[in-house]
């Protein structure tokens, strides 16, 4: 017994010494032995498919965190290859995804034509197009899978992520992003026109 106690104490002592000295001496921690190396992708070439000229003036960006979920009743097939599926109501498959993204709003500058502008001396009258959503961005790195119970195919997960993006846009609109963009569009253009030499700017 006392031998066992001695070995036990020796082991605990060695472990404590390793734990205390691991940081200053940069020794690998025991749990590091089971830590996976990060998986890196190869540097593959980028294919440029199209280059387009656009004229989008972004005046407001809204950041939002949204949640999208999907639930389905899981089914079992009676035999391999059978088309008859038996629902298993006690074990629904559930997927909950959190997405953190941004929505940009503003106006398309190329929608302002010669007919929308009237210049008289240092005064200008301008007919602005309505504010619009220019972009909704939730990239792969912005998603977090909060709950994943059951089997979910990549296509099913993709549908939930698209739902999250749609919710992001609707939420931004509900919070008044278009109204803010309308106000900002006028302010930004007024500033630009004043820098361009105009003293009096009127929006119709």
């Amino acid at each position, binding site marked *: 017994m006392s031998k066992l106690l001695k070995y036990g104490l020796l082991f605990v002592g060695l472990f404590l010494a390793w734990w205390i000295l691991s940081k200053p001496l940069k020794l690998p921690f025991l749990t590091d032995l089971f830590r996976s190396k990060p*998986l890196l*992708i190869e540097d593959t070439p980028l294919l*440029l498919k199209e280059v*387009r000229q656009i004229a*989008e*003036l972004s005046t407001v960006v809204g950041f939002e965190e949204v949640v999208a979920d999907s639930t389905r009743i899981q089914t079992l097939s009676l035999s391999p290859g059978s088309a008859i599926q038996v629902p298993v109501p006690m074990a629904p498959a559930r997927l909950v995804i959190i997405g953190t993204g941004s929505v940009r709003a503003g106006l398309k500058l*190329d929608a302002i034509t010669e007919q929308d502008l009237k210049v008289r001396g240092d005064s200008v009258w301008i007919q602005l197009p309505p504010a619009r959503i220019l972009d909704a961005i939730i990239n*792969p*790195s912005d998603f977090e899978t909060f709950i994943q119970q059951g089997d979910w195919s*990549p296509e099913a997960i993709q549908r939930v992520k698209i739902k999250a993006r749609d919710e992001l846009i609707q939420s931004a609109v509900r919070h008044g992003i278009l109204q803010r963009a309308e106000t900002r569009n006028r302010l930004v253009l007024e500033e630009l026109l004043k820098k361009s030499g105009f003293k009096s700017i009127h929006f119709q």
Partner: protein
Amino acid sequence: MHLRWYCLCWMLCLACGPSEKERRQQVLAFRELQELSTTEFLVSKIIKANDEGEWYKIGERKILMRCEATVKAGIDLSQLRESDIVIRGREVYVTLPPPQLQSINIRPEHLRVAYEEVGVLRSSFTEREREQLAAQAQKQISRSIAEMGLLKAAEENAANILRKFLLNLGYETVSVTYSRNEKNPGIDE
């Protein structure tokens, strides 16, 4: 009895490793911008990863994904000062700030698994792993766009758009040049 106690201590000590939990702090709010996007690039990239496993994971895993991204570049009008626009009668001389990458958009429907091979003793790639691989691809895309000199197209388009806008306002001659800073800021990652 003592053996069970030592085993329990061993398990508890193994669990007491340093843990990392990183969560980005997000600002849930609106922010004002004055960004004029003048060029949109549609790019595609193959994401290739090979997981050869660890000493305790036997077998390999490989995955190929296809990803399409829309990258927008343009100029930040908030950097345009009054002194950057010089007016001489019906002539106007504009010095624009250098163009920069403004956004990368990888839509969920534009990221697809093209091929996956998993060893018998390994588990499939999880959604979190696929997202992490796609995040690396996102960084490679923004680096490649800057290195390929595609911001030149954004420069030319910005000059064309502003020239047309100022000509519509009644100026007869519009000259657009760029200030040359040391570094073009990229997209916040």
